[in-house]
């Protein structure tokens, strides 16, 4: 991180692109269905005529603020703005219902800030070492990693493991609909040409989390903050986060680590962080899902650390960690910059500007978040009967924003009704989303590993990483399925 990049970032032009990118990212992040991929790709054409260092400052700011922006609606309305904020709803929204919307926003913005700083630090210092490790992960390890994520279902839904596993399987089945990625055959399309493209994830997740929430708000009536008053104390949230440094750092490291693995991304990082934290503090008071502070801190720290982590393999080796990182690569190539170690070592001001830009973007959204918390929190005392039609309209726009297809809106409505049923009957809704996210990754790498090994299943336990993951998966399933607690009590 040379001083040249710092000077460029703090110049008038640099600050203009930093702040404008931050504001655009924040707005896009708040809107359901429009995630960082949409935001960065939408802004890419506006950067054609800019020098590369300003392009990277601008896009880095859009990306960072977009992921944070999604946590505002997640906390206030229980609607994740991006897929990286899904688990933030589980405790952020109950806090808002208790009248602690300001605290929830303070928790999310501070943990996002620290996570973001850790992510940028990883991007700046650990790139060569971590990227080399990521290259050791082959298809068999990827498959095991996906199975590891799915086996978390058994642990998290302990006590209701059967329903958790059922929803996990349903999620995988949903992800298999359409043309298979490996063999190119039409699967379970029921003769529909629309289903050949598969069930789109964005409308499905908007339905599960946003439309279902609108139905719940309609049924509940009144206002979100059940006490009809809001404690707009973001500084309390800031202080509560700073009091838990171990948790914030733990999940920042987890998030950055997950970001480095290509193809995994923020949607998995926030789940893993939430699941790990809920298992580490299973006797927490209040429990997870009822307004536990750590339930907001863990996913936010991980998701924002993952933002920079995703860029590590992209800039170091030209392998994008996710869709957004791929757009960053496109931006580099548009300006005749080549990814690789040379980019960081002798890329001049561009690499340094990116790092400083992303670092300042973290502080930018922190300022926006803390100063705007009082204003944002007021949404929780707006009557649900006004919020419901607005949310429904936003859901439809979000569904159309994906591909502009009417069928996507139908998918969103069906998933909205299913999501409502799951909320209503206490199903672990996260399990179906986890299945939908990890299903394609598991299937593709399963077949790739078998092709590499000429059909031998021993490939899944042929390396240290895959064997270790295999053993952990077995232990987790045994823990989730067997009634250990009853057995220990009897003892």
């Amino acid at each position, binding site marked *: 991180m040379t001083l040249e990049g710092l000077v460029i970032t703090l110049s008038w032009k640099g600050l203009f692109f930093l702040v404008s990118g931050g504001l655009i990212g924040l707005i896009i992040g708040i809107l359901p269905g429009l995630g960082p991929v949409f935001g960065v790709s939408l802004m890419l054409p506006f950067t054609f005529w800019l020098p590369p260092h300003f392009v990277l400052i601008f896009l880095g700011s859009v990306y960072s603020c977009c992921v944070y922006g999604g946590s505002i609606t997640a906390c206030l309305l229980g609607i994740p703005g991006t897929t990286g904020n899904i688990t933030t709803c*589980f405790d952020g929204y*109950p806090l808002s219902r208790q009248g602690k919307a300001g605290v929830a926003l303070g928790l999310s913005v501070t943990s996002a800030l620290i996570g973001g700083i850790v992510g940028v630090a990883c991007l700046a210092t650990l790139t060569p070492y971590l990227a080399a490790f990521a290259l050791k992960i082959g298809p068999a390890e990827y498959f095991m990693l996906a199975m590891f994520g799915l086996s978390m279902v058994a642990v998290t*839904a302990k*006590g209701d493991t*059967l*329903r958790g*596993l*059922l929803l996990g*399987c*349903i999620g*995988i*089945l949903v992800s298999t609909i359409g043309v298979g990625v*490996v*063999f190119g*055959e039409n*699967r*379970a*399309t029921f003769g529909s040409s629309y289903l050949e493209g598969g069930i789109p994830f964005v409308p499905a997740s908007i339905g599960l989390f946003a*439309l279902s929430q*609108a*139905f719940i708000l*309609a*049924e509940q*009536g009144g206002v979100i903050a059940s006490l009809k008053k809001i404690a707009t104390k973001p500084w309390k949230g800031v202080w509560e986060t700073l009091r838990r440094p171990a948790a914030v750092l733990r999940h920042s490291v987890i998030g950055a680590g997950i970001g480095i693995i290509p193809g995994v991304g923020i949607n998995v990082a926030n789940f893993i962080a*939430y699941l790990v934290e*809920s*298992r580490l503090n299973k006797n927490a008071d209040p*429990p*997870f*899902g009822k307004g536990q502070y750590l*339930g907001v801190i863990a996913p936010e720290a991980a998701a924002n650390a993952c933002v920079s982590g995703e860029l590590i393999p992209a800039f170091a080796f030209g392998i994008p960690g996710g869709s957004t990182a791929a757009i960053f690569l496109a931006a580099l190539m548009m300006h005749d910059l080549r990814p690789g170690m040379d980019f960081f070592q002798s890329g001049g001001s561009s690499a340094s500007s990116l790092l400083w830009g992303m670092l300042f973007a973290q502080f930018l959204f922190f300022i926006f978040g803390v100063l705007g918390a009082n204003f944002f929190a007021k949404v929780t005392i707006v009557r649900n*009967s*006004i919020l*419901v*039609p*607005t949310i*429904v*309209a936003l859901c*439809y*726009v979000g569904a*159309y*924003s994906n*591909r*502009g297809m*009417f069928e996507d809106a*139908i998918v969103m*409505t069906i998933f*909205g009704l*299913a999501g409502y*049923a*799951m*909320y*209503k*009957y*206490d199903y*672990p*809704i996260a399990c179906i989303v986890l299945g939908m996210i990890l*299903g394609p990754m*598991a299937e593709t790498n399963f*077949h790739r590993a078998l092709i590499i090994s000429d059909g031998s299943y021993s490939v899944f336990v042929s390396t240290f990483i895959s064997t270790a993951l295999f053993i952990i998966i077995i232990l987790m399933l045994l823990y989730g399925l067997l009634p250990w607690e009853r057995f220990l009590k009897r003892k």
Partner: protein
Amino acid sequence: VEQKTKRFSGFLNGDVIFLFVCLAFSAAILIETRQLQEPSAALVPRLFGILAVIFSLLAIFYRALSFLRGYEKKKVTMGISTPRLEGVEVEGAMNLFLAIGLSVLYLILAELIGFVVGTVLIVSAYLWFAQYRRIPAVVLYSVVTSLSLYWLFYSLLKVNLPQGLIHWPWQRWLQ
């Protein structure tokens, strides 16, 4: 007979219906993948389809067992549980059906008459049925919501929103 009917209707609540939907979905996927020529392509859907059928049947079985034994549904507090809704009040149920009905209607209306008019009608209708009877406020709110969403997404962010079968003048103004 009356008692038996009562007991059966108590068992067949939304929870069990949802499990049957899961069962039907998994079975449909299994049937569809039977026709696949490449056995490897069907491996994952078949494996997880069979697992989903088994899990659904087991969940229905446990539900029936606990119902027959007269157990209340165990309220499990998981790490990822969500706010539980305690019973459905009549007004709440009415609002819920209103929200669901208008959402489905919105889907059709937006395609037929365009996003802007569809949104104005649906938002106004919902507010009206939700006891907001001040017509100027209702119309103003629905028009502002609709036009601002259209301007933000269609004009600024270039999202392809439904234009409907009728050509409205503002479509040209807002481009």
